[in-house]
């Protein structure tokens, strides 16, 4: 049976004629192009020939991402390589060498360098391709279950469109499957799409009666596309009944099934047509700033080469002209005819190009690539950039912009999840107008603060549950259905230390009213019920993929909108299996222990947003444990140990307009219908019932709650609060169904508010301070409210105490003020102390073409810029504007889908792989796990990569110019006839072997300053900014040096051998040898730190030179006719003059550079040199010096604001603003009113 199936799969087309093949190709092309595809099951056609298969036109599931095949590797790779202009140039030159009138060398030999370079590149390409092939092979051979009579284990590559595939728990989905059946009673299938976007999803299918054999429907679906969030298809039964399905029913290839025993799906797209493969665009290619600069200089080299060749050509012309007769050394052509001087000088031009071609560094490109591979290796292996918590290292997704990391001038950062943990922790609450500050938690906080001195590493913010529009927007963008978000919960989030008073209050309430209608009980019930948290039991919980993190999964809220299948009878149904293993626990134990509810191993919550989970955990701390949630019921264990099953009648999902969510449940004991609502403060307050409008108790409660909320908000520590309101309903269910959401949520009773904390990530303030000291301007772009953003701005030291904060509304005025402030002579020496805060609406106007320049002018003058309430599109526009208009290097860092635009626009995009999935990471060039890693990545690796590569490139240009010029100077003494005084093989070896590895090693391993110094003195980073170390000046200085050195290297031997009987190669040998020494020792001067690797490579290069040259000179009697270096070096090495010449030319050539360095380092040392000096001191002495030095350099240590009298009323309002307890509210108010203009 199995064999038959296999036959049908593999066999088939053997007997086909070519015509049929052609017809089939046309047909399949047509079938694939069609907008709609009709797919039927393969089962009825099992065992039939290939031509009978209904889905034969669609791509099989086997994938092939490798570009090459063994057979066609050479032609295809050559084709690829000739896309590079440089390669074409060098091959062109080599071919030019085959033209007899212009050739400079033996033609075959001229091909060697380019062949070696291309061979190396081909090796690299081949290796990469082989790895792709291997991973493809591994994927294609993964096992999966395909139905033929029963489920048989096969390989992924055997999967065809129209098959039924069964995926069991923790297995990866092999192709895009239309979900038909799952083992889950609710017909949902949990999948984790971390391979695609790092998220976890629910897939749902309602028809749960399923039998593959009897599947006789036609699946009609759209043409494959790469939209991961969109899919349309319908299933047509034989009786023409159609059922639609969307992306929620599609299991995408690469996802993993979780928490679901098995799922069965129908293959709609396979192999390269799957959405994940269509999204796989291969590696990113960016061109770094340095490389752009490099190309300019290559152009300069071409120009230089052109000039040199022109000189050679002209010289040849004049030389020929001056010969009055035909001397015996002038060789005519075969017919004894001599070309006219002009013609032969024309030929000579091309000969010169061939001779001097190495001036264009042929191996530079391949060397740069090798160096970058090495640099990436060192970035990847840095343990400081490794995050133990997630067991992940930094990822380099872009292989060619490592050096850009060292030139960043502007950083654009997202806030939530980037600066903060995006891990919400319940901190405070206010119930019935009474504040429960949870001091224990506060202690924890103050302890934290104490530990980190003034660095405020924790803060809270004013958000009202979905208070943060940013979160909503990011939800919307992340998924077209805004409802499915995942969160990872940290252990800490479950740790809420209960407030003693509140515990007492609860136990009092319980005793008094048996937990039914007491507002305290209601408050916690609301916390536990009014959310979309799904409970998974510890036993069924999937194996943790990520250490310490528990992926939390959330229901899709839209389920609430679907027609309920069952009557109210199911609502009381208790999911006994969910409650399995959970023992009722008395409130007393909780009360007595008063400890964090650490015993959370039994239940595990999967929440759509971290906020929700935090609240559920908070409720659990107080004994209200959410035990189970099904679409129709919620089971909660109350402190008394009783398990209450609430029938869920309706859920009004959260949306960004309403800024609230509601759940309508029926209380199991009283039978009352209760609507629990939670939402942003202003969204809730206006819905309160009429009693709150009047005087009396209710009004006071509302006012107190509002006051508490404001307190949370004003608190220097960011306070999160959550508001939670419920109202008791008595209407019948049917009527309710008719009622609109708005009608339901009126006349609410205020229960209370909660404060949730989103902690700043570790070392964020420290990192931001360091980055700022490094001369990088940090802009924070967030979707948060201005006051929240401002709080974070202070907390993460983006702004400092004593800064002016300017809130922009009238651009011109502000600009004028700021300008005046700057031009004020009193402020000339002060560091910029103005921070700019701008909100999304104003920003939209400021970004308009006529205001852009003024906005940038303003932003340039400010130390930091905070943009709040911005949309993802605005984020990318800001980045683009700054990048293009200010011509600076920008870096964008973010973690969520809302940052993707910005990350893609910036010169360097950094993704933080954290809570919000992988989309930012997928779009990024580098992915890190924590914001703090940015510090080392930029300050250390960025600096190193930049200086290394910059110096390496400069050196490379120098090296080639210095060597080639030797040949050029010789032309003046050989009638510009294109003679080389060095054997051509040795010239090739010189570039390929003797002097190729040292610069590569230099580019990978040189270390100008230690990592400790770079981290300790961020100012050192400034050396790389702007044009960096590789610029017009350094390039031409090194070229001039190359000319000087080549002059020395040529003319010292020339003068020493003048008038003697020296022959050509004997003359060339000391030239070659001393230029080797000069070139290597020049590098030796440049190398800042010599490790054992340096020594081995440098000494190895010299040894290689002598060994190879000696061997070549000894073996090669006739192998390179007509030129022949036989026994030349041996002869020379027996002559003391050889050594004397080499020594003096090496010393004279290098003396100026060496002396210049020494004098410069002593008289006017650069910061890097100073740092290097400090680096050599004892750590304790070093720290002392470092401090002194930094304060001298005017670092940010100077706290005091020198602004005595603010120059304008506008600034006066904001001068020395700091969000203390007193005046913050008034400020915020003013700020908001200012911003109205922006609307």
């Amino acid at each position: 049976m199995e064999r038959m199936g296999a036959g049908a799969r593999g066999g088939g087309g053997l007997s086909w004629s070519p015509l049929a093949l052609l017809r089939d190709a046309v047909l399949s092309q047509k079938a694939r192009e069609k907008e709609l595809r009709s797919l039927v099951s393969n089962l009825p056609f099992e065992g039939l020939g290939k031509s009978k298969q209904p889905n034969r036109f669609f791509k099989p599931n086997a994938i092939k991402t490798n570009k090459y095949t063994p057979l066609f590797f050479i032609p295809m790779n050559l084709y690829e390589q000739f896309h590079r202009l440089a390669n074409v140039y060098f091959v062109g030159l080599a071919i030019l060498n085959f033209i007899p009138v212009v050739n400079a060398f033996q033609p075959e030999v001229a091909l060697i360098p380019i062949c070696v370079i291309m061979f190396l590149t081909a090796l690299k390409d081949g290796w990469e391709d082989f790895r792709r092939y291997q991973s493809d092979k591994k994927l294609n051979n993964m096992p999966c279950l395909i139905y033929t009579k029963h489920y048989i284990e096969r390989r992924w590559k055997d999967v065809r469109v129209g098959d039924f595939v069964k995926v069991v728990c923790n297995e990866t989905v092999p192709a895009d499957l239309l979900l038909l059946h799952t083992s889950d009673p609710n017909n949902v299938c949990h999948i984790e799409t971390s391979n695609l976007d790092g998220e976890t999803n629910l897939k749902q299918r309602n028809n749960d009666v399923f039998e593959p054999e009897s599947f006789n429907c036609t699946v009609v679906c759209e043409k494959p596309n790469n939209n991961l969030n969109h899919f349309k298809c319908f299933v047509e039964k034989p009786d023409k009944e159609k059922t639609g399905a969307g992306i929620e029913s599609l299991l995408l290839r690469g996802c993993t099934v979780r928490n679901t025993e098995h799922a069965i799906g129908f293959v709609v797209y396979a192999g390269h047509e799957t959405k994940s493969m269509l999204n796989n665009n291969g590696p990113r290619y960016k061109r770094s700033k340095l490389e752009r600069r490099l190309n300019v200089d290559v152009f300069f080299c071409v120009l230089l080469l052109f000039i040199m060749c022109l000189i050679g050509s002209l010289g040849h012309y004049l030389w020929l002209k001056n010969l009055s007769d035909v001397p015996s050394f002038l060789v005519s052509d075969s017919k004894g005819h001599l070309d006219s001087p002009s013609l032969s000088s024309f030929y000579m031009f091309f000969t010169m190009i061939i001779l001097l071609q190495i001036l264009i560094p042929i191996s530079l490109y391949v060397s740069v690539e090798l160096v970058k591979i090495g640099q990436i290796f060192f970035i990847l292996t840095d343990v400081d950039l490794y995050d133990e918590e997630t067991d992940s290292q930094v990822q380099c997704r872009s292989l060619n912009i490592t050096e850009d990391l060292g030139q960043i001038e502007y950083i654009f950062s997202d806030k939530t999840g980037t600066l903060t943990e995006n891990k919400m922790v319940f901190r405070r609450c206010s119930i019935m107008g009474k504040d429960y500050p949870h001091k224990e938690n506060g202690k924890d906080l103050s302890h934290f603060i104490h530990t980190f001195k003034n660095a405020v590493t924790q803060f809270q913010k004013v958000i009202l549950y979905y208070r943060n529009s940013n979160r909503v927007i990011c939800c919307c963008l992340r998924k077209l259905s805004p409802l499915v978000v995942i969160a990872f919960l940290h252990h800490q989030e479950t740790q809420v230390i209960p407030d003693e008073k509140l515990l007492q209050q609860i136990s009092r309430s319980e005793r008094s009213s048996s937990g039914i209608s007491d507002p305290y009980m209601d408050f916690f019930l609301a916390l536990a019920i009014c959310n979309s948290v799904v409970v998974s039991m510890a036993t069924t919980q999937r194996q943790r993929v990520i250490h310490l993190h528990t992926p939390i999964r959330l229901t899709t809220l839209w389920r609430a909108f679907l027609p309920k299948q069952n009557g109210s009878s199911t609502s009381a149904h208790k999911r006994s299996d969910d409650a399995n293993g959970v023992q009722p626990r008395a409130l007393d134990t909780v009360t007595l222990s008063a400890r964090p509810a650490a015993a959370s191993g039994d239940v595990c919550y999967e929440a759509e947003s971290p906020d929700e989970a935090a609240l559920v955990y908070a409720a659990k701390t107080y004994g209200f444990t959410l035990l189970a949630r099904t679409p129709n019921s919620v089971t909660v264990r109350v402190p008394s140990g009783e398990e209450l099953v609430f029938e869920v009648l309706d859920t009004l999902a959260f949306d960004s307009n309403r800024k609230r969510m509601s759940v309508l449940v029926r209380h199991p004991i009283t039978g009352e219908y209760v609507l629990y609502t939670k939402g942003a403060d202003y969204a809730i307050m206006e819905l309160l019932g009429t009693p709150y409008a009047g005087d009396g108790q209710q009004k006071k409660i509302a006012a107190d709650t509002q006051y508490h909320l404001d307190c949370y908000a004003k608190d220097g520590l960011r306070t999160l609060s959550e508001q939670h309101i419920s109202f008791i309903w008595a209407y019948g269910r049917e009527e309710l169904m008719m009622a609109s959401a708005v009608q339901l949520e009126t006349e609410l009773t205020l229960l209370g508010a909660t404060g949730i904390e989103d902690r700043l990530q570790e070392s964020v303030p420290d990192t931001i301070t360091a980055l700022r000291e490094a001369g990088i301007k940090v802009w924070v772009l967030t979707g948060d409210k201005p006051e929240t953003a401002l709080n974070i701005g202070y907390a993460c030291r983006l702004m400092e105490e004593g800064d002016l904060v300017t809130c922009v509304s009238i651009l011109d005025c502000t600009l004028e003020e700021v300008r005046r402030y700057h031009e004020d002579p009193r402020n000339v020496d002060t560091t910029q102390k103005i921070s700019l805060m701008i909100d999304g609406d104003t920003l939209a106007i400021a970004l308009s073409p006529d205001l852009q320049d003024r906005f940038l002018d303003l932003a340039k003058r400010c130390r930091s810029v905070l943009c709040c309430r911005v949309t993802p599109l605005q984020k990318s526009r800001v980045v683009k504007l700054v990048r293009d208009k200010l011509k600076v290097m920008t870096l964008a860092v973010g973690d969520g889908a809302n940052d993707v635009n910005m990350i893609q626009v910036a010169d360097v995009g950094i993704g933080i792989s954290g809570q919000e999935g992988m989309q930012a990471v997928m779009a990024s060039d580098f992915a890190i796990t924590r914001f703090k890693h940015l510090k080392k990545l930029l300050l250390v690796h960025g600096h190193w990569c930049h200086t290394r590569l910059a110096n390496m490139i400069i050196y490379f240009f120098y090296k080639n110019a210095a060597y080639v010029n030797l040949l050029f100077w010789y032309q003046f003494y050989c009638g510009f006839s294109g003679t080389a005084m060095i054997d051509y093989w040795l010239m090739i070896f010189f570039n390929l072997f003797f002097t190729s590895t040292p610069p590569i090693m230099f580019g990978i391993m040189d270390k100008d300053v230690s990592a400790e110094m770079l981290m300790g003195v961020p100012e050192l980073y400034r050396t790389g900014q702007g044009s960096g170390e590789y610029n017009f000046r350094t390039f031409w200085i090194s070229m001039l040096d190359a000319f000087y050195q080549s002059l020395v290297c040529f003319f010292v031997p020339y003068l020493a051998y003048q008038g003697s009987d020296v022959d050509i190669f004997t003359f060339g040998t000391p030239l070659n040898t001393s230029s080797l020494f000069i070139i290597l020792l020049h590098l030796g001067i440049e190398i800042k730190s010599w490790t054992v690797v340096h020594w081995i490579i440098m000494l190895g290069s010299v040894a290689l030179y002598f060994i190879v040259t000696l061997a070549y000179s000894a073996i090669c009697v006739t192998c390179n006719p007509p030129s022949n270096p036989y026994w030349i070096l041996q002869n020379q090495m027996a002559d003391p003059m050889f050594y004397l010449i080499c020594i003096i030319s090496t010393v004279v050539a290098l003396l100026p550079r060496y002396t210049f360095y020494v004098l410069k380092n002593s008289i006017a040392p650069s910061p890097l040199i100073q740092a290097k000096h400090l680096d050599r001191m004892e750590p304790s002495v070093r720290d002392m010096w470092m401090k002194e030095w930094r304060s001298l350099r005017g670092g940010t240590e100077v706290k005091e604001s020198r602004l005595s009298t603010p120059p304008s009323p506008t600034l006066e309002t904001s001068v020395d603003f700091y969000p203390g307890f007193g005046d913050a509210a008034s400020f915020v108010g003013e700020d908001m009113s200012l911003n109205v203009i922006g609307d």
Partner: protein
Amino acid sequence: MTTMKEEGNYANRPSNTAFTQQRLPAWQPMLSAGVVIPGFLLIGLAFIGIGVGLLITSRSIQVLELDYTGTETSSPCYQCTMSNQSNCVCKLSFSIGTLFKGPVFFYYGLTNYFQNQRKYGVSKDFNQLIGDVSYFKSPSSDCQPYQRVNGKPIVPCGAIANSMFNDTFKLYQIINGKEELVPFDGKGIAWWTDYNIKYRNPDYTPLKNAFNDTEKPVFWTKPAYELDTSDASNNGFINQDFLVWMRRAALPNFRKLYRRITEGNYKDGLPAGNYSLEISYNYPVISFEGTKKVTFSNVSWMGGQNEFLGIAYLVIGSMCVVMSVVMLIVYAKFRFPEED
């Protein structure tokens, strides 16, 4: 077991070695004034020493150069520069005041002669020159236009061989008005490797047979196998003069070793006295404004006389010493704190 598990948990942790963490012990040379003073001083003194040595050696070398181009009418060779003078012989008289210490090397020199021209340099057939007779019949096309003459292949072909220097010299000491021939030693003036390895005669006896059906180079007066009638082993491709000529000069003004004076009465050098040099003037140089000269020189370990190197060493050495003083001043004024 536990450790295994822990390792598994940190599977992606990079290895923490000095190499991967870029913490290999390193020598970090500090290019500052204080550090380099001894270096400069040492190099300076060493160079001055070498320079003095070189200069003394160079000064001890005696050189006698005689131009015999004959461009000036006063020159004894003037008449040889006239057109169509064949087998012209001119005599150059000179006197030596003190003993010219031996062994004396006798060079001929050419100026403005570009043996290093690329096309000229290519123009030879290496296979002929290692004695491969098959190439006698069909010389390499590199030899053009000196590949064939009258349809017959030229051996040795090519421009280098063709343009071989063909002036010959005889030196006489005039003792009591009588000319006494100073014996020349023509052996071993070419490189040993050229004579023994790179150039071989075909294995024919007599050598003439190998050259059947070939032509001598057009400028030559004698075929290759008759270059030295006095010494049969100094013929063909291993003729010393031929080998010396075939080793192309690197620069347009060069000299080539012609003979050594090592024999008989002249073993210790040329005694003071009057000498006469008989030149058989054949080689044309006037057309390209070249000059011809002969040079007598004795040699030292550093080769011929050359003052440049000695002076260069002296100058650079003194500069280094001066620099070390400058560095000392700089060091005193700008030293870094930790250099105390």
